């Protein structure tokens, strides 16, 4: 482990003009960020981590990947299971299931020689690698232990752990783990862990669930279904839905109407350019209009617990773009006033 860094006092600076929802989200001990593939969930997780760190919290961002996606953002060749401080008050770690398996063995068996023996035993390894739910189980255990060591629950060094979870399927699987364990293990340490993990996932102010989506039909429908599913099966209420990639209000619907008339009037050399302008206007105004419909739908379903992040018209997102999103995340949204 790295030596603890000297950090300033962890007072959360409350920006009076800031978003109360963002402030509330950042008060959790853990934020679980998930969403369908391609919605920008990793970007949202990093943005939230940057915002929390900028506001004075000590933040650990955890990715569950074999290769870290945020490492390049901070100019690092790679990030492994040991947290690295990449910026003031911001640490990142990247775990794969072998890291979590080793962690579990180390915690259970204590003796390093025994851990190595267990990891090398092919029957033990075969069993752990192949049990279907083992990945979410090992990760949940790992996360729970980190959470136990930190902030208000201990004397650890993080105020907030933000987890970039792989897929919504993994998330559903993870919330099912305490029940699964309780069925399989009625007594013993595993049964005790099941209780502890369930508490972390269900107690107010501990693990907050954040769903990321795009303002498009399929992602929105699936996000609302995921939310309903988790509520029904596990009694988990989603802390917030983040709508990423919302097209800004550049072109107005009436601009499209004028262009349509203009396209009919245009003659000669003007025909092609006007058609092209009409394409651009329709694309932007149409996307904005549809996004507004989905935002309304989500706000109604979530009683306003929705954060809107703008589309930045770029396919890469360097750190300055991430910080722009972090800023928007923390700011009081114009629409909500």
């Amino acid at each position: 482990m790295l030596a603890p860094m000297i950090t300033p006092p962890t007072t959360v600076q409350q920006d009076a003009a800031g978003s109360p929802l963002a402030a509330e989200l950042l008060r959790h001990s853990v934020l679980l960020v998930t969403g369908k593939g391609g919605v920008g969930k990793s970007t949202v997780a990093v943005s939230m981590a940057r915002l929390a760190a900028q506001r004075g919290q000590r933040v650990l961002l955890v990715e569950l990947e074999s290769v870290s996606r945020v490492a390049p953002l901070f100019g690092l060749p790679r990030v492994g299971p040991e947290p690295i401080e990449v910026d003031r008050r911001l640490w990142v770690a990247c775990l794969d299931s072998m890291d979590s398996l080793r962690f579990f063995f180390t915690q259970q068996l204590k003796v390093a020689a025994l851990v190595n023996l267990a990891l090398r035993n092919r029957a033990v390894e075969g069993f752990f690698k192949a049990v279907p739910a083992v990945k979410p189980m090992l990760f949940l255990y790992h996360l729970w232990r980190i959470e136990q060591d930190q902030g208000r629950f201990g004397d650890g060094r993080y105020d907030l752990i933000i987890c970039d979870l792989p897929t919504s399927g993994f998330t559903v699987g993870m919330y099912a783990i305490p029940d699964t364990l309780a069925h399989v293990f009625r007594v013993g340490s595993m049964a005790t862990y099941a209780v502890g993990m369930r508490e972390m996932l269900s107690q107010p102010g501990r693990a907050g669930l954040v769903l990321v989506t795009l303002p498009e039909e399929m992602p929105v429908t699936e996000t609302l279904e995921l939310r309903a599913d988790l509520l029904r099966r596990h009694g988990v209420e989603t802390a917030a839905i983040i709508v990423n990639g919302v097209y800004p209000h550049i072109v107005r619907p009436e601009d499209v109407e004028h262009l349509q008339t203009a396209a009919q009037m245009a003659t000669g050399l003007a025909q092609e350019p006007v058609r092209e302008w009409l394409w651009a206007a329709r694309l932007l105004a149409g996307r904005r209009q549809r996004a507004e419909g989905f935002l309304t739908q989500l706000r109604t379903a979530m009683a306003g617990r929705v954060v809107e992040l703008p589309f930045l018209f770029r396919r890469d997102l360097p750190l300055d773009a991430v910080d722009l999103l972090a800023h928007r995340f923390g700011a009081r949204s114009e629409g909500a006033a």
Partner: protein
Amino acid sequence: MTAAAATLESMLQDSRLVILAGSGGVGKTTSSAALALHAALAGRHVLVLTIDPARRLLQALGLHSRDLPSNTPLEVLPVRRADLPATELDADGELRNRGTLHAMMLDAESGAIDMVERLLPTAALRDQVMNNRIYRAFLPALSASPDYMALELISFLMRDDRFDLLVLDTPPMHNAVDFLHAGGTLAAFINERVLKWFAKVPLPGQKSRFSILGAGTSMAMSVLGRLLGNETLPDIAEFFASFQEVLPRLRERANETDRMLRAPHTHFVIVTAPGETSLREARHLHRELQDQTMNIAGFIVNRVIQVPRMLADPSHLIDATEHLRQPLIDSGLGAAETSDVTERLVQAAAKLRHLGEADEAHVVTLQRLAGKTAFCTVAAQREEDIHTLAQLRDLGARLLDASRPAC
């Protein structure tokens, strides 16, 4: 594939199994359905197998809601041929090329139960497994990994003589190995070593046989006992004991799946969309599939912003703006309003041009990766979700057009 044959069209003519792979949110399901429809219209007997399908797409295929049976092939064509343009039908109102299309949704939970039933030879054994505490606890988890089910099902469906082409829409993955090895993982889960090992654990009600175990095994046993609790070991042992008889069949099935994935008439298509993450994952997938010596037929790049000629070129933009002014005034706008609208549009065009350039660079990278032996076809960003069979057909036609060597 030979260089001359590297088109989407030839792939759809020659394949028995087409697997679309890619990360989430890149339009894999829609692409699978569009390719399957195209092949069916060309006269093949196609089954498209989809996991986690979008509702609109189901609607387009004529499969309305969740109350339809899952894990059962449902007929789309010829039964829904009236939804197609008349050009696809002959004078008798039949499909011109007499192809068929079926679609099947994979429901992992009932799939897991079906699979266990298929694998376990006797009713007594099935009951034993179904009532095992471990099995019951892990069943939902097994269902959360549809790749197990998908691979198991395709080897089963490949033997169904109603179909001569299977199009498989895989679950989102950034790791091809996860999916390709799913069959092997299942066999590994219940592998001989693990089985033998657990066979030595006393079943509930039996006396301990620890004394007769070798040193290595009792070591491992004590480790596992410490990890999971000794009281759980008999349940786990019973679970594995139920699978003793199945193991050879499971292994055989895994080998069969492996052969099927590498067969000459099996082709992988990597589906992607613009964006650094998607591009990185497509390259990663390509490398992994190559390492695994799978046949990669080509790439489909969805959701590309294709900026039209004049807006794409800054040197034409002033010209294009000039040409905008008069028609806008003619449409009834005042001079000031015309300036405002124009200003907003110029701003919009600059942003779209930026995206268009990034997307073009992305496509060029993939074209280079595809080289001469694979196709690389591009679908423009659509402004509406697909919800009719006719729209799906148009998408298929566009994908086919864009994959011809001329591009």
